């Protein structure tokens, strides 16, 4: 009988729930922050009440050439608050400290943030805009954070709208679109996350990975036919293997060699696999590796190594969707991200914020934060054309050059 079935389902639910409760998890339902905060309490150089580094940031050093982010237009804030929500996509909380960035934004401006699909890739984000052109519902993203190459292609397809933040001038020219459609937000350098319990001998450079002692230990963080991170890993290897930003082929050759030697594990590495030691050397962005070490809490012991040669910087870009249901909230979000506060929050996630040079110059970065970041001097930034050419090559050639040897052989 239907009642019986429902009763049983309820019983099972109760069993689940009670077991969970017994394990000490208290569910705190988030009450939406409906209270509005007055538009005046917003100088970005002040340390807000939430978790910020204890060191003070000088509020007075603002040379005339800087556009201080304290000048966030109060009208914008009011308009954003009238919209009430911001819809983001593909922002995992452990990536560049986005968790804290979002929380700070929410508490600072009283907006709700509707987070879509945190495990989306750049392509998925573009898809989401396209698929929701006529949709003003919660699935339509307002803002996107995508790989460098996707900014201009999104612009071409008419998917994004231009906006120049208050601190626009301090963003390096080659990291933004002149008309303001997209703009770099942070970058990282490809490096090796090594589980030192399993592999105490930490590789210092790409060439080291070919050593037999790394047999069956090296893995990429994605599928090189589809994932930004993996493609750029191959590109980075090219730099260290006789190639250049214009020639990514040696990268493919390198990985073919790595595969032949048996050093390349075909798995898509994640932190669980690093922890078990299955992918003891994970090729990933330095900020991911450093965040992983934090999460391991010493178990396992791990290190992040930025390779001596072949330092490849990957830039991600922000953009506002042309079909954004909440354009003002989106613009406020951008202002927040590009304010000193936002940039420093990213830095706490080990990402290099795009305005890093400016922040350093003005001395607003706390000492302890500076100490946490690895030395990435000499990292190269590919141009759009170079990136596109390399991606084309790598995604189409990967299977034939690197993966070809494995066919069905039971």
């Amino acid at each position, binding site marked *: *009988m*239907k009642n*019986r*079935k*429902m009763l*049983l*389902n309820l*019983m*099972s*639910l109760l*069993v*689940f729930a009670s*077991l*969970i409760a017994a*394990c*000490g*998890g*208290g*569910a*705190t*339902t*988030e009450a939406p922050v409906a209270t509005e905060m007055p538009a005046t309490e917003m100088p970005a150089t002040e340390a807000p009440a939430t978790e910020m580094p204890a060191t003070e940031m000088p509020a007075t050093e603002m040379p005339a050439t800087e556009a201080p982010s304290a000048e966030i237009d109060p009208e914008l804030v009011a308009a954003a608050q009238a919209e009430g929500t911001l*819809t983001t996509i593909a922002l*995992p909380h*452990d990536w560049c400290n986005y968790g804290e960035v979002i929380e700070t934004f929410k508490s600072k401006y009283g907006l709700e943030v*509707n987070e*879509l*699909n*945190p*495990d*989306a890739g750049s392509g*998925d984000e573009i898809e*989401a805009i396209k*698929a*929701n*052109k*006529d*949709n*003003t*519902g*919660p*699935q339509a993203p307002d803002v996107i954070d995508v790989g460098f190459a996707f900014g201009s292609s999104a612009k071409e397809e008419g998917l994004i709208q231009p906006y120049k933040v208050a601190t626009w001038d301090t963003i390096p020219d080659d990291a933004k679109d002149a008309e303001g459609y997209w703009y770099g937000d942070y970058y990282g350098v490809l490096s090796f996350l090594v589980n030192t319990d399993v592999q105490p001998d930490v590789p210092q450079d790409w060439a080291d990975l070919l050593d037999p002692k790394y047999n069956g230990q090296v893995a990429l963080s994605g599928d090189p036919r589809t994932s930004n991170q993996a493609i750029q890993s191959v590109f980075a290897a090219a730099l260290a293997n006789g190639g250049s930003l214009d020639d990514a082929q040696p990268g493919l050759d390198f990985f073919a060699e790595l595969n032949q030697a048996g050093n390349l594990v075909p798995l898509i590495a*994640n*932190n*669980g696999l*690093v*922890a*078990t030691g299955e992918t003891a050397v994970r090729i990933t962005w330095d900020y991911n590796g450093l*965040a*992983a070490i934090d*999460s*391991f809490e*010493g*178990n*396992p012991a791990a290190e992040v190594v930025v390779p001596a040669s072949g330092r490849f910087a990957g830039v991600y870009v922000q953009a506002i969707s042309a079909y954004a249901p909440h354009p003002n909230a989106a613009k406020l979000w951008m202002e927040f991200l590009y304010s000193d506060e936002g940039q420093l929050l990213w830095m706490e996630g080990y990402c290099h914020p795009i305005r890093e040079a400016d922040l350093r110059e003005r001395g607003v970065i706390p000492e302890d934060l500076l100490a946490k970041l690895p030395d990435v001097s000499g990292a190269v930034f590919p141009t759009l054309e170079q990136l596109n050419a390399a991606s084309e090559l790598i995604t189409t050639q990967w299977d034939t050059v690197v993966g070809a040897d494995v066919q069905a052989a039971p």
Partner: protein
Amino acid sequence: MNLLSRFRKFSFWSWVWFILGALYFLIPLYATLRHSLRMERDVIGFRAYERAFADPSFLETFLLSNLLAVATIIASIILIVPTAYWIRLRVPEARRITEFITLLPFVVPAIILVFGLIRIYSSPIGIPFTGINLLQPLTTTKLGTYTLIVAGYMVLAMPYMYRSVDTGMRTVDIRTLTEAAQSLGASWFVIVTQVILPNIRSALLSGALLTFAIVVGEVTLASFLGVDAFGPYLFLLGQHRAYEPAALSFVTFLLTWFAMGLIQLVTGGQGQAAGAH
């Protein structure tokens, strides 16, 4: 004596197969458990479990998925039971095409179905070539989105639900029951809810539990529709955390097994066929 020795021989091999099977199934599960207990360095402990359950998102997404699962099950029953009943009783010609329809989700790759659903229902439905819009995209409202996702889940679970219901009805004499109930003056509604449903109870329950497993584990549909379900939560956890995902997958496996056992106990029913992806 002949019988006895044969019986003993049977049992021996049966035990062999069973033990081999048990080893095959239980060892990987043990490996997951083992990993989950080692979050703290050199200590066997439950820290991973504490952390996993302390995350408020866990309970939120889990409960939401549970609710969606229950909604899917109820909606599926409401849709499928009367249909299967009616087909058996009155429209046997429809049987072929209905079975074909219920096998479609099995035939068409799930990822395609999901993408198709999202594409179609994210834009307004209108009369082509005119500017007239009949229906705003379902995805504009939260309610519309939930409707869409439940419909998607119903589609994914349909082969299993229909098979369960059909198998259940096969063993029951529908015709006689109906006639008897009609002769006592029962309306159609009463017949379906108070006569038919109770008799296919155990088959329904197995179908329900399989639907439950499918819904709670589903990732793609939920991710793309922006629904905070358990599947995407677990997936994301697996990307970043090293120990909690193992803890959660072990616990969910155990709990589902336990729930299934409970249901078996109460109904004494048979298991039903399902599939994984």
